[in-house]
C-alpha cells in the first residue's frame, strides 16, 4: 500500500490484479457492475470486484441501503462516520473521498483537516466527537461495545434509528476499507 499521508486530494485506486474489462464482461458481471453504478462511469475497483459478480450484486444492495438512505442519520453525518472509520483504519483513499463528501454536504472543512492532521477529538463539538469516538470504538474494540455506548450517543441527541444507522455505516466501512486496502493501491490522480 502506498504510504502517502492523509489528504483530501483526488486519488486513483489501482488493483493488484487485472480487473474485468467491460467489453469482456458476461451477463452476471454486467448486472453487478450496473448495480454498482460502474458501467457509464469507469471504476477499476468495481471491475475488480466483478470477478465475483454474485458477491458484488448482493453487497451493493446492502451498501446502497446503508450509505445512501434518506431516513435517520443525515447524509452528512453518515459520511462523517465513514470518514472517521477510514481515518482510524488508515485507509487514505476512503478518508479522502468521504472527507470531501462530508464537506460537499455542508460539513466543516476545518473539522476534516484538523482530524486528518490529528485524530484527537477533544476540541470537536460534542455530537461529532461522539460519532467519531463511536466509529473508533466499533473499529478497534468492537467486542467492548455495549449499552454505555448507546447512552453516550443518546446524550448528544441521536435517536434510536440514528444510532442503528451509525452502527451499520461504521461497520460497513470496515468492509469497504478492508477491500480497498488489500486488493490494490492508490496514488494522486494526475490529469
Amino acid at each position: 500500500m502506498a504510504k502517502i499521508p492523509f489528504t483530501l486530494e483526488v486519488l486513483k485506486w489501482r488493483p493488484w490484479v487485472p480487473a474485468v474489462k467491460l467489453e469482456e464482461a458476461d451477463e452476471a458481471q454486467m448486472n453487478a457492475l450496473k448495480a454498482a453504478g460502474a458501467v457509464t462511469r469507469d471504476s477499476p475497483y468495481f471491475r475488480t470486484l466483478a470477478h465475483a459478480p454474485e458477491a458484488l450484486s448482493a453487497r451493493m444492495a446492502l451498501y446502497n441501503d446503508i450509505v445512501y438512505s434518506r431516513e435517520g442519520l443525515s447524509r452528512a453525518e453518515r459520511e462523517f462516520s465513514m470518514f472517521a472509520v477510514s481515518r482510524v483504519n488508515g485507509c487514505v483513499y476512503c478518508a479522502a473521498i468521504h472527507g470531501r463528501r462530508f464537506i460537499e454536504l455542508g460539513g466543516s472543512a476545518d473539522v476534516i483537516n484538523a482530524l486528518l492532521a490529528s485524530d484527537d477529538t477533544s476540541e470537536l463539538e460534542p455530537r461529532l466527537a461522539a460519532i467519531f469516538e463511536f466509529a473508533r470504538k466499533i473499529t478497534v474494540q468492537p467486542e467492548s461495545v455495549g449499552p454505555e455506548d448507546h447512552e453516550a450517543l443518546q446524550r448528544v441527541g441521536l435517536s434510536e434509528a440514528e444510532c442503528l444507522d451509525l452502527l451499520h455505516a461504521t461497520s460497513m466501512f470496515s468492509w469497504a476499507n478492508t477491500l480497498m486496502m488489500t486488493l490494490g493501491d492508490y496514488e494522486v490522480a494526475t490529469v
Partner: protein
Amino acid sequence: MTEVEAMVHPALRALDEGVDAEALIAMRPKTYAAFDAVDDAYVRPADVADGLSLAARAFVAWKAAELVPNARLAAVFKQELDAVHAGDEPAAWVLFAKHIAMMVKSPAAASKSDVDALLAAGVSLKQLVELAQIVAYVTYQARVLHGMRMWQKEVR
C-alpha cells in the same frame, strides 16, 4: 434469538441474548433483509460453480470471525464448517489463513505480493475476490452483532 428466528435471519444467528432483534429489524427492515441475503449468498450459495467451495467459505468466515474478534460468530461458522467438511484441512487453507490474518489484523500493511502468493498457489481471480469479500463481510457482520448489544437488556 430463537431457533426459528435464527433460520429466518441467518445473519443474526450469533446475536447475544437480551437483544430485541425484531425491534431493531423493524426500524430498518430493508437493511436487515439485504444483510440476510448477503449472508446466504456469501456463506451458503445455492451454486458455488467454479468459485470457493461451501467448506472453504465456512473456513474463511470462521477464521475471520475469530480474528475480529467475535467468538459467538466464530462458533456459528465452525458449526457450518463441521457440517460440510470432515478430516484434514486442505493445504490451500493454510495459505488462506495467513491472508485472512493480514486482512483482518493489518490491512494497511497489505501488498501486491500477498495477492500474488494466492494466485501463484492456483487460486483463481474469482476465488480470490470471493475470499476477500467473505472476510470483509465478516468484519462488518461481527461489528454489527457486537454493536446491537447497545440495546441489550439485562439477561435474567
